[in-house]
């Protein structure tokens, strides 16, 4: 929300008269008279001598044209620290009301609300409100014929304004406008400023998905381009109170927002993306309003994609060296047992398929159980946790090494034997057991894929997990089922050979590509250094995997085994303890410090801290305070074009201005507080503290030019 000083006191009504001036002196006089005759058009709510809220009625036009529309706005300006409420006030408070009493023939549209702020009070009481000033707007449709010279529109407004305590306020307002076919825009800045904050009812330019969870909804956002943080504000639903959504940082354009509401009823609200400025879109869950109709389809596409990949992945498992030779053996086995009866061969094929399904659905059940043991909330935000990304990366890397043949995964002998015995009996039960056995035997080749699928499956709902694993099972069972139905087609099976080993090795590369993506995400979260430390840790893991594969095989001597075990322990300790536990863990802190300390440009920036700022100000020095962040493109643009220029650098030096940089790339509570002090929730933001004006800094515009900056700091007249 903007700071109150953007609109000097008393400009509102004179502005209305000024726009009337283009209409001729007659109207100017008339409007001036009506302004003075109607002292209630801008009444203030007083509390213990303090002006809490000033309410003003205004229009975006200088005159009312017949048969047209115009916008009528209620401007509330709150005293610093006080807030009024959004249409859903949140945990406490009351929505502001604004009801124009229109003359006959006029019609008013619904009330439009700018994006609210989230304000958190003690006890985790969260409200959705406005600070500074807010403009609530209704679109008014005028009748086709109007035969009066002017129209007076009275309006009733009532609100609750709160700080530590709450005071209700109300006002009877009136706006008088001339009737004319030709109109000029009025109050354009105000309307433009708040129109930009109205949520859009159109299709959002990102993908959304809704998944019901035990605690409400999980709202998934994907492909949000450059935005930094996502938030959700629910519309009010009396019967189904919606809890607070915690805002989430977007990582690689994705975030999952938890919307707590008992029983997952239909929910509507506003998704707000923040990237210096804030933009909002109205969204609705499945079974909500017509606006929501597109979202289930989008979610379905996502599910079908998963299933297709599961199917393909399951099918590819058959081409692995441990699996392919088994296929023809199995089919020949069915044929022998069934005595060449086509129907019986198919029955065995079906029993075998059932075994495969049981195995994979069992795996899915284990994952779902694990997932429910941790809470839904915990797993939904995993990719925002660099530690999670690090662990998944390590698993993927080790699996890739396995595919490259650095080491083999050996199954415990006893389990294999038990199943083999079970499968040894003939009949359909035997084929069923063999289906389980075949998948188990295939584990050394399939583990890398299943493990990766498992990692990603954790972020999905139980239904998606089960469906995905069923698809993998279907993909894997497909050739057996097909060949048991058409045994003659066995001649088309590719011959086992060295190509299978090559295929296995090749499959390691897609896994490494996935690892690159994870490292990119880690880099976004914790900076370049974190990527290096994670990679160093993976290197140690790789060394351990190689030692395991090379020296811990069944043929190694006892001494070699002991030495290799020691070396493995050492490299794991180095990797996990030193690189991960120490360096990676500290990387986040070091990033923010370094970013501020190393000047990225020609200006000798001093890193911001409130203590440093107060020290410099106390010394009577002027300060230019730049709130910026690496991900803020406007900030970078301003830096290149308006701040880091020869003229500005010279002016800073000549006038002894201390350039101070508040880097908000990573969350920094001190900077957030400082921004909040000026009712800001984002960057860029620029302050100039003139000499001796430590308490009253000048706020510079967000779109800065060199000339504006030079004038503000007094380097130019």
């Amino acid at each position, binding site marked *: 929300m903007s700071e109150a000083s953007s609109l000097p006191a008393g400009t509102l009504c004179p502005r209305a008269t000024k726009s009337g001036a283009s209409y001729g002196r007659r109207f100017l006089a008339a409007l001036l008279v009506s302004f003075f005759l109607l002292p209630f058009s801008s009444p203030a709510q007083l509390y213990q001598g303090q002006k809490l809220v000033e309410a003003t009625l205004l229009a975006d036009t200088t005159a009312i044209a017949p048969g047209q529309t115009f916008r009528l706005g209620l401007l509330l300006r709150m005293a610093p620290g006080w807030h009024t409420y959004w249409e859903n006030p949140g*945990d406490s408070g*009351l929505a502001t009301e604004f009801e124009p009493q229109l003359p006959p023939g006029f019609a008013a549209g619904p009330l439009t609300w700018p994006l609210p702020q989230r304000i958190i009070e003690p*006890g985790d*009481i969260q409200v959705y409100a406005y600070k500074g000033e807010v403009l609530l707007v209704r679109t008014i449709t005028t009748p086709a014929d109007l035969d009066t010279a002017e129209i007076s529109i009275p309006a009733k407004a009532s609100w609750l304004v*709160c700080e530590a305590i709450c005071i209700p306020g109300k006002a009877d307002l009136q706006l008088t406008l001339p009737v004319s076919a030709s109109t000029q825009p009025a109050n354009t800045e105000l309307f433009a400023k708040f129109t930009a904050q109205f949520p859009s009812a159109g299709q959002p330019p990102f993908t959304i998905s809704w998944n019901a969870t035990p605690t409400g909804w999980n709202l998934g956002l994907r492909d949000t381009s450059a935005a930094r943080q996502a938030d959700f504000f629910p519309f009010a639903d009396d*019967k189904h109170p919606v809890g607070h959504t915690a805002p989430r940082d977007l990582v690689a354009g994705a975030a999952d927002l938890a919307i707590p509401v008992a029983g997952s009823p239909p929910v509507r609200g506003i998704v707000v993306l923040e990237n210096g400025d804030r933009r909002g879109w109205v969204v609705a869950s499945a079974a909500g309003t017509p606006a929501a109709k597109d979202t289930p389809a989008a979610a379905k596409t996502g599910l079908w994609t998963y299933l297709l990949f599961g199917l393909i992945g399951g099918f590819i498992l058959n081409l692995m060296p441990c699996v392919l030779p088994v296929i023809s053996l199995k089919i020949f086995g069915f044929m022998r047992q069934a005595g060449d009866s086509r129907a019986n061969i198919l029955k065995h094929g079906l029993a075998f398929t059932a075994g495969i399904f049981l195995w994979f659905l069992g795996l899915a059940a284990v994952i779902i159980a694990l997932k429910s043991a941790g809470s839904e909330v915990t797993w939904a935000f995993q990719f925002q946790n660099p530690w999670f990304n690090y662990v998944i990366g390590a698993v993927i890397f080790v699996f890739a090494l396995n595919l490259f043949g650095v080491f083999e995964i050996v199954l415990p002998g006893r389990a294999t034997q038990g199943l083999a015995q079970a499968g040894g009996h003939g009949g359909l039960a035997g084929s069923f057991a063999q289906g389980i056995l075949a998948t188990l035997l295939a584990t050394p080749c399939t583990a890398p894929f299943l493990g990766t699928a498992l990692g990603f499956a954790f972020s999905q709902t139980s239904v998606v997990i089960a469906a995905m694993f069923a698809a993998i099972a279907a993909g894997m069972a497909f050739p057996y089922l097909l060949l048991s139905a058409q045994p003659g087609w066995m001649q088309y099976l590719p011959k086992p050979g060295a190509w299978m080993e090559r295929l296995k090795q090749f499959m390691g590369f897609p896994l490494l590509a996935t690892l690159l993506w994870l490292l990119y995400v880690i880099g976004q979260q914790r900076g370049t250094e974190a990527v290096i430390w994670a990679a160093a840790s993976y290197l140690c893991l790789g060394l351990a995997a190689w030692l395991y594969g090379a020296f811990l095989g069944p043929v190694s001597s006892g001494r070699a085994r002991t030495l290799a075990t020691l070396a493995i322990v050492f490299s794991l300790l180095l990797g996990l303890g030193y690189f991960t536990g120490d360096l990676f863990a500290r990387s986040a802190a070091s990033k923010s410090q370094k970013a501020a300390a190393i000047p990225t440009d020609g200006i000798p920036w001093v890193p911001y801290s409130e203590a440093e700022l107060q020290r410099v100000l106390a010394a009577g020095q002027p300060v230019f305070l730049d709130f910026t962040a690496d991900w803020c493109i406007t900030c970078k643009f301003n830096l290149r074009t308006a701040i880091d220029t020869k003229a500005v650098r010279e002016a800073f030096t000549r006038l002894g201005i201390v350039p101070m940089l508040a880097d908000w790339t990573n969350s920094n509570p001190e900077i957030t507080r400082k921004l909040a002090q000026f009712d800001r929730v984002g960057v860029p933001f620029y302050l100039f503290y003139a000499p001796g004006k430590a308490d009253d800094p000048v706020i510079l515009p967000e779109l800065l030019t060199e000339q504006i900056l030079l004038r503000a700091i007094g380097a130019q007249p």
Partner: protein
Amino acid sequence: MNILGKTTLAFFLAAGTALAAPEVGQPAPAFTLTDSNGQAHNLSDFKGKFVVLEWLNHGCPFVMKHYDSGNMQKLQKEYTGKDVVWLSVVSSAPGKQGHMSPAETNQAKEEKGSAATAILIDGDGTVGRLYGARVTPELYIIDPEGALIYAGAIDNKKSVDPTDVEGATNYVKQALDEAMAGQPVSTPKTEPYGCSVKYN
């Protein structure tokens, strides 16, 4: 690994604290609070009776709406007359709006004509937080078996205007009448409206 373990633990803890508020249909959390006359009340003392918890702050315009119109007192009289225990709870922290000493509490009770069974003083906000009370007035109804059967607003007219009391659907009256007639509560949970509870 240690740090990883701590991170995981922190996640689980964070997820746990978010689920503090009791659910309708579940047992109401037990508590003991001292009233304005210095007498301690334990929720279990009232087993076998319906109990209403009313979060109270006489400085709040929403509370004033229901006391100045006489609406709250009328409800209190009607149901305490039917052997319902009505406990008003003040969770305002000392120094914040609505907090009162025991003497001031009794004075206010007399001036407002409150017919509550007792006014409980919860200055550190423990019981307020236990129940997840967010606003004043916010009302909870507990059945004779100790289960929470209603949580939310007093009625469906979100305003500070005393004239809105007439014609509003009073959820508390509705829930008590239904439950006392042995029927299930038709609207067991509503979004409460009011001022924030002034926790410390």
